[in-house]
Structure formats: structure tokens, C-alpha cells
């Protein structure tokens, strides 16, 4: 497992005074995390189904309705598909922004 060359999403932010922030995000870890989260999301959806919708006069009515309308499993599946797609693009510079002293670069390495 550890000797495999992992695909990383590198976020690099260069700030004034030569400060540089590098955030490596392992695509494999995110993938595994989402895989594990899928079952939890399914459980969450089941629990949410049991939560009654409050009356329209209640302040939480809109929020509860909105939360119930969204499928967490669907969102996770969408992100999971994106991650799968990202795997095909090793070496790609997704975002490269330079303005004044600030530079932001997001790439797949």
C-alpha cells in the first residue's frame, strides 16, 4: 500500500513575504473516505426519514424540508465520480492564478 505512487491533489498558495503554503490531498484517501461515508450517509437518510416535518409556522420548517429533500448518498456518489475521473489526469494543472504577490496553484501530481 505505502510503496504505491499515490495521486495527490496539490494546493499551493504563495503569499507576500515569500510565505508558501502547500496542502497535499491524497486522492486515494479521499476516495476511501467517501467509500466509508456512503453507508453512514445511507444511515443518516434513514434517520432523517423518521424526523417529522415541523408545522409551517415553525422557524425550522424550511430548513428541515430542505435537508430532507437532499440526498446525502447522491452527493457522495457525485463527488466519488469526480474523484474517479480525476485519477485519469495526473500531471494536470487545474488552476493557476497569479495576481500581485499572491499565487494559487491546484494541480494533480
Amino acid at each position, binding site marked *: 500500500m505505502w510503496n504505491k*505512487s499515490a495521486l495527490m491533489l496539490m494546493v499551493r498558495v504563495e503569499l507576500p513575504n515569500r510565505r508558501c503554503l502547500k496542502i497535499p490531498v491524497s486522492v486515494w484517501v479521499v476516495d476511501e473516505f467517501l467509500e466509508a461515508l456512503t453507508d453512514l450517509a445511507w444511515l443518516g437518510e434513514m434517520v432523517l426519514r423518521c424526523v417529522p416535518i415541523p408545522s409551517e409556522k415553525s422557524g425550522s420548517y424550511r430548513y428541515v424540508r*430542505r435537508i430532507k429533500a437532499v440526498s446525502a448518498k447522491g452527493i457522495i456518489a457525485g463527488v466519488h465520480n469526480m474523484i474517479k475521473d480525476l485519477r*485519469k*489526469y495526473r*500531471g*494536470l494543472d487545474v488552476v*493557476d492564478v497569479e495576481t500581485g504577490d499572491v499565487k494559487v496553484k491546484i494541480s494533480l501530481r
Partner: protein
Amino acid sequence: MSSEKMKILEMIQEGKLTAAEGMDLLKAIEEGSYTEEEFKSPLQGGRFLRVRVVGEKTLRVNVNVPLSLIRSASKLIVYALSFVPSEKRAELEQKGLDLQALDVESLVRIIEESVDGKIVDVEVADPLEGRIKVEVCVE
């Protein structure tokens, strides 16, 4: 020699990969850490939506998004649009943009199937940055 290895050597010869990058890829293939699906350079295959903004002074924006990624993100965009507050939705509707009628998935499909080349090519004058050139293209 496998087709993947040949492809890497060709890409080094054409200058699309550096020798060091090529070595890494060859090593990864030998170790079996790459599947054929994963072995795909961003320079070959696949179409991209590219956004370039270049200012006269310091501004430089370069965004490259694979169309296949936009396709898989389109469902998420639909979800995200459902979270737009109703007041903002009404505000946009007054400006002629009906978010409910926006079919993101079809839009992505149309871009994928029929758009090729530049979609936007604009040059504007900015008091701070001078001339700013904005280009959006699919290639």
C-alpha cells in the same frame, strides 16, 4: 514491450514528458501501481474547458477543467443550485435567469458534443490592470 511503455517513450521523445517523469511512470507500471485506465496523460485524449485571463501587469489566470469532470460534477451543480435562497432566486429571475429552468446536464452535453474552439474572446480595459484579455475555449 507493452503499449503503455512504448507510449511513454514516445511522449519523452516528443517532449511531452521529461525523462524523470517518464522514469517515474515506467517504474509505476512495472510495480503494477497503474491500471491502464489510470495511465492517461492530461496532454493526450480528453477534452478540456480552458479559461485564460491575462492582464497587462500582474493578473494571470489559467484554469483547465476536463469536460468529463464537468459532466460528473453536473449532478452536484444541480444539488448546489437547490440551496440558492428563494430571495436570490427571485432576484436572478428578475434579471432573466431562471435557475429552476437551467438544465446543467444538457448544457454540459451540448458543450461536449458541439462546441470546439473559442467560446469567449474578450479584451477589456481596466483602470488598475490595464488591458485584460479573457479567453474561454474547449479543446
